[in-house]
């Protein structure tokens, strides 16, 4: 199975390493044309304002609407989660707007407030060491969105059909279980016909 990591800016190599560790072929995606080669895409952590601008500039915003229509799974971590969200607190526009949730950027504060903690994630047995860096939060989700993890009563991981969004950075650990979970989603949606 071949998946991609959007490589406009951010922690790309780390995602590729863990996707391969979890058993996939993974490539960095810099051009829209590469989307045809892959069955799933990771939107990595980085700066959402930077990645969002570059996505628009190179036509990823429209190409990913199509990717989404084809029910190909997309997995956003941190900045990637912001890119997926339908609504972003404090601003009247979004990036891709694919996932029915409202997120808040830098919800825990500045870098000195960044932290790591053991987290219980639905669908993943045993705790996961979650690294939060200037992380966003999910404030609200639509009824078609399944909450997968919460920290301090606030949502930090969620899934909507073939879309997965998490606030933290599994790619900064050596634990490939979240990436494995995403690859199962890719497997599940392979060959699903476009509606």
């Amino acid at each position, binding site marked *: 199975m071949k998946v991609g990591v959007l490589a406009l800016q951010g*922690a790309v190599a*780390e995602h590729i390493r863990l996707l391969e560790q979890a058993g996939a072929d993974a490539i960095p995606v810099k051009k829209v044309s590469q989307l045809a080669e892959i069955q799933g895409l990771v939107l990595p952590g980085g700066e959402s304002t930077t990645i969002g601008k570059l996505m628009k500039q190179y036509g990823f915003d429209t190409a990913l609407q199509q990717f989404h229509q084809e029910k190909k799974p997309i997995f956003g971590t941190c900045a990637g989660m912001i890119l997926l969200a339908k609504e972003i607190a404090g601003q009247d526009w979004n990036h891709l707007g694919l996932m029915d949730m409202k997120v808040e950027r830098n919800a825990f504060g500045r*870098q000195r407030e*960044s932290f*790591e*903690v053991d987290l219980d994630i639905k669908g993943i047995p045993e705790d996961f060491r979650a*690294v939060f860096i200037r992380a966003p939060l999910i404030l609200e989700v639509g009824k078609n969105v399944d909450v997968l993890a919460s920290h301090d009563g606030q949502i930090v991981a969620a899934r909507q059909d073939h879309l997965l969004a998490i606030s933290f950075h599994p790619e900064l650990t050596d634990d490939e279980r979240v990436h494995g979970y995403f690859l199962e989603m890719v497997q599940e949606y392979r060959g699903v016909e476009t509606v």
Partner: protein
Amino acid sequence: MIETGTSRVKRGMAEMQKGGVIMDVINAEQAKVAEAAGAVAVMALERVPADIRAAGGVARMADPTIVEDVMKAVSIPVMAKARIGHFVEAKVLEALGVDYIDESEVLTPADEVFHINKKEFTVPFVCGARDLGEALRRIGEGASMIRTKGEPGTGNIVEAVRHQRMMQSQIRKVQAMSYDELMAEAKNLGAPYELLEYIHKNGKLPVVNFAAGGVATPADAALMMHLGSDGVFVGSGIFKSDNPERFAKAIVEATTHYEDYALIGQLSKDLGTAMKGIEISSLLKNERMAERGW
């Protein structure tokens, strides 16, 4: 248990900046221009390096008002510089809430022997280096990110190229060494042995490695990416150019697509004049900022 300020959290922050451009700014207005152009972070300063060079005298930490104005103006991370060895300036910056501290040779050093013990801080640090030994000494002290020193405020890329080439060549050499040779090489480089072991096994620094000190054009940024940099700092290069908005955007794009030469050609068209450069050999030894740090 919740843990803040772990090395994973501090180094991870720099990982998120990879493939991006960090821009020097001196006020809220410039910070907004940088953010709009797609900068991944801004460095809040009282003067850009070219003006520090021109002004002479002692260069210190910026006025906290400037740092706070910039922090209020943008949602991207804000960095600020402390003098080498000046741990009180660093503690002040940490208290202000900056996201990253640059213990920087651009400012006048406060200590001619010791750098800051960066492990004591919750906020991460970036430090300059000219070669592998210097980079590993800084990482040994707790730096979570390394950048080349280059020669700041000159708009001349030659020193940054020298430093990145040196670092990459030394990394390859250590990687190819036999295990038996590592301790002697640690002594030779003046670097912690454990970090040399890491380089030997992994063929890269354990932290993100950016380019800095002389980047003035989109092609300069792309060149540094080719030489193995994870991203680029641009100091005077943007706001000392004719058209900061366009230079900033073009450098961001060239950093992302550093292998797309047709695009870099497009980006470089009609940009206006880049900052006026300085030939390195015209600098006196005491005017060379890269010589600061030990």
